[in-house]
């Protein structure tokens, strides 16, 4: 089976600084790949290149057999096939929830209004927000807004979904409701590329974990192998930092009498 997404020797510069260095990564259809790594390692940039929000520099990036570095790439078409969800949701604040969701299907894909509405309704029910259809983004919690943002992407019927630290801006209470939605997509066999700092989630949802640092992929592994027995010292170090908090000794100190 050929890969749906394939990076080969992929490079990206911001000015003089090279932020992605010789990336080789292929993602099969239906696979869930989680990209981990410290801040600034280039993992978000990698996703953004796939969506044409950042221009690539050199190397090769193929999607469904087409070379995206080709000048003739029709990014509007690619973006309909590759959905993207952002850290800060970026819902359109001047539109109702339903209008947010239908903008792409109606104006870009020119679909039938009734059919698109029905799909939007189904997706809203699926994420448990059918009653918010006519609300405006500012009336919703962060977790609700993020679930709507996911629906907005899904309603375009993409082949792949990219999640760029989608829970990083959320209160801990709301992280769960968003992760459950993503987990549901994974279960349905959707192809997902996920950048996250939620380690337990990464372990639960990933078919494969990619560990990046300083613009390079250092490690490719199954989640079990990566989390129990990382191959590189850098990955070990990275994981230790995340387990630091959970393994802190409890504070043992008598309360002083008032």
């Amino acid at each position: 089976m050929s890969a749906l997404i394939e990076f080969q020797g992929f490079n990206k510069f911001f000015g003089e600084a090279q932020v992605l260095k010789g990336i080789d990564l292929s993602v099969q259809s239906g696979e869930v790949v989680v990209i981990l790594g410290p801040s600034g390692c280039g993992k978000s940039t990698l996703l953004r290149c796939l969506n044409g929000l950042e221009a690539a520099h050199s190397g090769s990036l193929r999607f469904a057999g087409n070379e995206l570095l080709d000048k003739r790439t029709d990014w509007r078409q690619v973006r309909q096939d590759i959905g993207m969800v952002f850290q800060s949701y970026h819902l359109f604040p001047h539109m109702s929830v339903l209008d947010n969701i239908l903008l792409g299907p109606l104006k870009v894909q020119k679909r039938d209004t009734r059919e698109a509405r029905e799909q939007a309704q189904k997706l809203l029910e699926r994420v448990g927000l059918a009653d918010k259809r006519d609300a405006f983004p500012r009336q919703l919690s962060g977790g609700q807004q993020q679930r709507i943002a996911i629906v907005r992407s899904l309603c375009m019927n993409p082949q792949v979904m990219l999640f760029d630290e989608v829970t990083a801006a959320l209160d801990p209470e709301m992280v769960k409701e968003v992760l459950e939605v993503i987990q549901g997509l994974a279960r349905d066999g959707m192809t997902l590329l996920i950048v996250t700092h939620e380690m337990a989630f990464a372990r639960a949802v990933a078919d494969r974990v990619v560990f990046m640092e300083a613009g390079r992929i250092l490690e490719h592994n199954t989640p079990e192998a990566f989390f129990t027995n990382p191959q590189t010292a850098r990955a070990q170090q990275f994981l230790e930092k995340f387990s630091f908090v959970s393994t802190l000794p409890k504070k043992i100190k008598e309360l002083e009498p008032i």
Partner: protein
Amino acid sequence: MASSGLELLWVSLPQLGKGAAQTLLISLLSIAFSTLGGVLYGVLRTLGNRLVNVVLRVYLELFRAIPVLVWLYLLFFGLPIFFGLSIPSFWCAVLVLSLWGASEVGEVVRGALYSLPRGQREAGLSIGLSGPQLYGYVLLPQALKRMTPPTINVYTRIIKTSSLAVLIGVVDVIKVGQQIIERTYESVLIYGALFLFFFFICYPLSAASKVLERRWAQA
């Protein structure tokens, strides 16, 4: 004296009205062209094309640095001399006021678009919107709230500045007033009437701008 003053005003009204209509027509046309040109300018400035930006910056600075009056003289007297092209004074006034107004409105539009979170553009692009769709459905509607109050202020300035048109021979409300004064020497009365005319046109506009600004600042 008071009764004869009011009488004079009364008999002058049709004449003043004609001048006022001329002033308002110049203002309205200039406001319309300024708005269209300003939106175009604002959008073009946010596209990030270097050549377009340079050209528009030069245009902006020319209209910022050179007084409107000089532009009026330059086009009204200069065009016939240098290009053999003469425009009626009415249209010359509309042209200069529109170009000047468009640079002012344009900067407002640019600022409003620029102040939107970058994520709005990216979210719009990520669902496959084209450039015009992105501006039409996502960016400009959001910028509208930010740009309306300052744009109304530009409108009042266009209305006030239209009075300069008298200097290239447009018979506007000021010119008519001057003609009446030449005949009757009632300068206080006539200029008082002009004062009220401009005040009652411009004050509601700037009041509306304030109200909108306050209302939308809370939203």
